[in-house]
């Protein structure tokens, strides 16, 4: 096998049993790797009915075939399983440095079941794999844990760790690599916590990889790295990070404000945009493994109530989720709140979404001081967010922690008073920081049909509507108008296929935008030796989308669950998209028809499953 190693680590924490397993080679061709291969493994081997926080739940980390290559944006990793936040299929992707080290150590992935009887850590040193005590790290923040693990084992050991939020089973707890690269979404930090697994550490002696066609690969690698590095978008993100165009987004109505109640706030745009972060707080750029873009930020806030020492800075999602979404335009506060979420182990998107919902509920009088344990939830009050709210959530302390630790949907169900109407989510996953009313109506569709819930990285639709994609080889030549439904169902089919490919190959969306479709195919062929053409690659993408849909069927989801909340669908009240309706039902019906999904059950038709070589899967659902 090339690219991939063909080997998976199976770890049962109850029995303390560690086995090296191999997966059928056809799984790799059919499901690529990353979240796609994880879905296939979960479907075949997981206990689909297990509570996600029970010992029986399966937690999977999976590389793509390119992990470890010296290629920009190609060394991400996926974590996957049943999400404790949504109760349905979940996956989350992370850059950083874990994926290449795992590949060099000889593994494509780690499949974890069971629950250790005491706080534990998985240590992987090539074929020496063991579970050791993590008692000394339990209760500690991720920053300290990461630092101490590296002191103990060495700087070059790569780490995954959870914080107090994961230990306390907060349903949107994250997992961090190297203390700041995040598997942010869907709550897999809580799954690790439920297994008493505080950290995973990996170190490989060698850096060898098997490449199908080494000479062709080397030529392609140089060409792609150069394309990615020289691209205008890469240069802009290198200079000003992923928030480089935040201000532009404010003017198109893409940036959510005060729990999606507004789509325009000019002063906030200038205050929070990436250029301002660069001017005020940036000390240097950071990067994931082998990436020439280096969009990560290292920041220092010298003084004031939100002073933070030099360290990882916020990306776009964090700046907005802990900025405009909660009514703040204080960039220093976003830096500090983001750093705190990292240390506590909280997903900034769901944390921001849940806090924004609570602020609106407080503002409306739907929750009171009695509900919050005396904490006033006021728009833009970042001192309270940082000093009280986030720590309470992570430690599940007091009434406030108990109310907000399961996410906005659970909190709204608990409170009632129609407060569910102003949650912003799909399938229980709080919406990311691109408002589809301004960002593009196709985004509303892809948020809704995404298997894991509202997600901006499940597909490249945001970029497609922006105009940043042009794939004539596969028929994507549309000039999309963001605030209409024209050609959106057709674009969404391409988007879910491409998104499934990139999330399975574990490619970074910022880097792979610069690679043409024929080059994607070449990369699979020269590295993994798949011998694909474009059609076969796109079919694999579609197949990945289908299997995740089947998983959600097992969890009881139907077509009606492919939806957004009324808050996200009501016409915008101000800004560029003011008053514009989204033709959601029309887009969704056409999308189902184009992609052969049953409009009631929400799963692929039996015929299409068979056409995609998924007859066995079809038998389980039809």
């Amino acid at each position, binding site marked *: 096998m090339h690219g991939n190693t063909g080997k998976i680590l199976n770890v049962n924490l109850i029995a303390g049993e560690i086995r090296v397993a191999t997966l059928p080679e056809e799984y790799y061709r059919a499901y690529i790797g990353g979240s796609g291969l994880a879905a296939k493994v979960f479907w075949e081997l997981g206990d689909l009915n297990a509570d996600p926080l029970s010992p029986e739940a399966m937690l999977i980390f999976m590389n793509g075939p390119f992990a470890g290559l010296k290629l920009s944006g190609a060394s991400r990793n996926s974590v996957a399983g049943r999400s404790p936040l949504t109760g349905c299929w979940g996956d989350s992707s992370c850059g950083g440095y874990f994926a290449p080290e795992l590949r060099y150590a000889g593994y494509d992935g780690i499949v974890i079941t069971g629950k250790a009887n005491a706080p534990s850590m998985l240590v992987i040193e090539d074929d020496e794999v063991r579970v050791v005590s993590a008692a000394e790290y339990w209760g500690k923040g991720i920053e300290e844990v990461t630092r101490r693990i590296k002191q103990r084992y060495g700087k070059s050991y790569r780490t995954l760790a959870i914080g107090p939020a994961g230990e306390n089973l907060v349903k949107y707890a994250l997992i961090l690599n190297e203390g700041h690269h995040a598997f942010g979404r869907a709550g897999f930090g809580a799954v690790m916590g439920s297994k008493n697994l505080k950290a995973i550490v990996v170190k490989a002696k060698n850096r060898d990889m098997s490449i199908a066609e080494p000479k062709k690969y080397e030529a392609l690698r140089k060409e792609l790295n150069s394309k990615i590095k020289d691209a*205008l978008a890469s*240069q*802009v993100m290198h*200079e*000003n990070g992923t928030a*480089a*165009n935040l*201000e*532009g987004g*404010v*003017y198109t109505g893409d940036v959510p404000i005060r729990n999606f109640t507004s789509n325009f706030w000019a002063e906030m*745009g200038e205050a929070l945009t990436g*250029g301002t972060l660069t001017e005020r707080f940036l000390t240097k750029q950071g990067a994931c493994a082998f990436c020439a873009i280096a969009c990560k930020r290292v920041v220092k806030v010298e003084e004031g109530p939100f002073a933070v020492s030099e360290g990882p800075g916020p990306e776009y999602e964090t700046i907005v989720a802990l900025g405009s979404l909660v009514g703040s335009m204080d960039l220093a506060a976003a830096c500090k709140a983001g750093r705190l979420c990292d240390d506590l182990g909280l997903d900034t998107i769901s944390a921001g979404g849940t806090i924004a919902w609570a602020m609106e509920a407080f503002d409306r009088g739907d929750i009171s001081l009695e509900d919050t344990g005396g904490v006033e939830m006021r728009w833009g009050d970042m001192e309270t967010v940082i000093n009280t709210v986030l720590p309470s959530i992570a430690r599940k302390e007091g009434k406030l922690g108990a109310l907000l630790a399961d996410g906005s949907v659970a909190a709204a169900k608990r409170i009632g008073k129609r407060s569910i109407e102003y949650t912003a989510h799909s399938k229980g996953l709080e919406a990311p920081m691109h408002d589809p009313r301004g960002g593009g109506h196709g985004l509303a569709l892809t948020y809704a049909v995404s298997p894991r819930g509202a997600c901006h990285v499940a597909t490249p639709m945001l970029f497609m509507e*922006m*105009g*940043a*994609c*042009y794939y004539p080889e596969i028929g994507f030549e549309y*000039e999309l108008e963001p605030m209409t439904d024209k050609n959106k169902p057709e674009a969404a089919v391409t988007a879910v296929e491409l998104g499934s490919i990139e999330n399975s190959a574990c490619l970074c969306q910022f880097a792979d935008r610069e690679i043409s479709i024929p080059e994607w195919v070449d990369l699979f062929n020269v590295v993994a030796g798949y011998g694909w053409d474009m059609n076969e690659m796109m079919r694999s993408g579609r197949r990945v989308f289908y299997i995740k849909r089947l998983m959600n069927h097992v969890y009881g989801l139907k077509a009606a669950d492919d939806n957004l909340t009324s808050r996200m669908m009501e016409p915008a009240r101000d800004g560029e998209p003011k008053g514009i309706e989204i033709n959601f039902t029309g887009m969704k019906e056409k999308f189902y028809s184009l992609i052969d999904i049953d409009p009631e059950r929400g799963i692929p038709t039996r015929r299409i499953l068979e056409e995609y070589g998924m007859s066995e899967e079809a038998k389980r659902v039809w």
Partner: protein
Amino acid sequence: MEYWKDETEPIKAFLKLFENASKDEELNSGLKKVNQLIWFDYTEDGPNCSFNVDCRGGEIKVAAGKPEGKPDLVMSLSADDAHRSWSNKLNPVMAITRKKIRVKGSATGLLKLAPKLKKVAVIYEKTLKELGWEDKIMK
């Protein structure tokens, strides 16, 4: 060229556009924040079809042709696409993706101006009227 009879026309229009835009307080301030020497290169439509804007040092200077110093940013496109762009009828991201606009140098400054394109389009329409070129106004 679809919109221009020769290479002098677009430059006349765009120089006047920048002269008018500089008189607008918001755009003037926005341009100064860009703080770059920019060459708008339309030479694919004629060797003299270009102009430059120098926003460095708190002043805005506009002149025909290639700048004497090395520009911080070069934007190369056709004079027709420039007309579409200033009329806010060309999605700049899409145009860059499809290589209709080629950019060399740091575009960070331009991002600051992107939100103001709508306002620029209004001034451009007035500019075309001033020049007696109502027929070139894009609807």
